[in-house]
């Protein structure tokens, strides 16, 4: 009879034994390119998306970001891309209050990080085709689609080097707010009630090597059930969040570490 042996990390199919965890599988993503386009949206409409205990931050800012991940240690050097949506929030739990970002949704183009992210960390990941970004005439573009139908087009143009004051201000604004959060929700088998219902935080370390600022532009698509039966409601809801004001878009190149011994993924209190 197969028996689970702890401590080890098991995922389905669990009876084959635990996942490999060793010196080759660090949390480092060594080559990471990010296009982030933040904007101010309608406070009430954003609040309507947040589960209990989460409030919209002082400024109702949403950031849509594309990430091109390469040289990923835990994937033996393989790559994947993602497009995610974060909201600036405050979490007010029974024992702690955290300022940070709430992950509304993340599309990824590879099953492995989707499964581990959802099951082990509670990050709301779904699948989409996300080709590598293109750069043409100094305009950076990327997109996501599923079942052959576009979800979003993103672009950043008018690139410039950041001013030192902008970098310093970004650091100051981020101080104490480096808390990415999410909602781990899994429905009970054979019923509609939740089997898992908990809020989580999944810190990471980002080492930025280059930064460009620019002008961002987002184009969410309107989709029907026939076009994208599992995600059309997500995409249409995001399209309904108005873009009241774009903030400076940012392109960064650097490295990311998802496993921080001092700040592990944990359930919020």
């Amino acid at each position, binding site marked *: 009879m197969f028996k689970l042996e702890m401590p080890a990390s098991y995922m389905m199919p669990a009876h084959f034994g635990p996942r490999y965890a060793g010196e080759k599988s660090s949390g480092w993503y060594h080559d990471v390119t990010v296009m982030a386009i933040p904007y101010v949206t309608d406070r009430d409409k954003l609040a309507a998306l947040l589960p209990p205990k989460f409030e919209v931050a002082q400024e109702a800012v949403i950031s849509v970001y594309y990430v091109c991940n390469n040289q990923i240690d835990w994937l033996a050097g393989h790559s994947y891309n993602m497009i995610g949506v974060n909201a600036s929030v405050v979490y007010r739990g029974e024992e702690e209050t955290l300022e940070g970002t709430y992950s509304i949704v993340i599309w990824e183009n590879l099953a492995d990080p989707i499964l581990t992210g959802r099951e082990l960390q509670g990050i709301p990941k779904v699948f989409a085709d996300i080709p590598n970004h293109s750069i043409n005439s100094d305009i950076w573009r990327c997109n996501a689609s599923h079942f052959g139908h576009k979800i979003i087009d993103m672009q950043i143009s008018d690139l*410039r080097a950041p001013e*030192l004051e902008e*970098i*310093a201000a970004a650091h100051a604004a981020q101080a104490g707010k480096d808390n990415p959060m999410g909602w781990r929700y899994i429905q009970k088998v054979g019923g509609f009630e939740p089997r898992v219902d908990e809020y989580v935080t999944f810190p990471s370390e980002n080492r930025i090597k280059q*930064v460009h600022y620019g002008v961002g532009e987002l184009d969410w698509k309107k989709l029907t059930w026939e076009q994208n039966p599992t995600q059309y409601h997500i995409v249409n809801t995001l399209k309904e969040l108005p873009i009241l004001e774009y903030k400076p878009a940012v392109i960064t190149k650097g490295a990311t570490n998802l496993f921080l011994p001092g700040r592990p993924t944990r359930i919020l209190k």
Partner: protein
Amino acid sequence: MVDTNAHVCFIGGGTMGCYNALLAALAGHRVVLYDVSEETLLRVLPTMNDMASHMIAAGLQDADGVATALERVGTETDLAKALDGAWLVSESVFEDIMLKRDLFAKLDRMCSPDVLLTTNSSALLVSDMEDALEHGERFAALHSHLGAMLFDIVGGPRTTSDTKEKLQDYVKQLGGVALMLEKESKGYVFNAMIGPVLTAAMLLVINGVATVPEVDRAWMKRTKSPMGPFGMIDLFGTSLIYDSWNNRPDEAAFAEMKFKILSLLAPIVGAGRLGMKTGWGFYAYPEPVYAAPDFLDGQPDTSSADYTLTAAWTQNAVLLAANEIVSPQVVDQAWMVATRQPKGPFAILDDIGLERALILFGISGPLAGPENVEKLQAFLLTQLKQGKAGRDSGAGFYTYPEPAYLQAEFISGEAI
């Protein structure tokens, strides 16, 4: 002869003004440091103390000598008082051509014609400013290097040999090496080489060819130096390099490069990672990884980064000689004095061999400017035609097996 009762006046209380004034005071000169800002002048003595503590730690000065020297330092916000009794004036104000022209016109009017006027500018030429003075014969560049006893002396069209000789004597009194340039040249000698090396290093990282440690390993392996280009940027201060690029005009030829380099440096400088002085720049101090004994373990003799850095360095060195700014031997002397490395770029070219160097220049591209490619090739080909193909042939820029750069007096501090 210099009037020993007279003092040296330093205009501008920033880093270089403080450094130059400290060197003069350590050599026994009375100095007066002038700045329009009282706040800046209040920082002069702490800055000098900080600089002197590094010198003491390095065994270059003793504490008593520093204390005595600092007693010779005065500060002044009144320019007339600062200039009264000065025999030499050294300017280190912001690199703004109009500011400097106005200043030198004023100094020219306020000082008697026998007072020497000098600029420490590294970006502007004497000829950019000298027509603002009536007495251009006493005006020259006296350019120092932070942390190195190397001084460039360059005259303008009217500068007399007497002026240059007095400045040469002054540098000798400081215990430094006076580098007499035959012609004006932007970046003088050392900066004209180190600048392209640092730029090439940053572009290697920006373009994803190599990482910061890989770049530094390549350079350290090639030059036997204790740090690589990014260690040097940390030493000079990341903000200094950032400012030098940020203040560059947006010329079309450099716009893309400026954008890329500022995008690399801004997140570092903006986060307060100013280099060694703040404990963090590209590396963390006081124990940067490049100082670890195993840092170079496994590093191959050559790499893409090595080719690029060596080509950027040696191409710009050859350009200095090809343009007859200074001779190859003087280029090497300047490099060795400034960096304390055992060889200069022409000795390295001899090691590589000039035929291979031509190939290296070809594959690495025009790192001294596309307009200079033919000039560089012609310079090396002339050497080759004379049978001076490098170390393996017994002669190159030096004669082997006992090249001049191995002799102690090569960098003895005498004027070169």
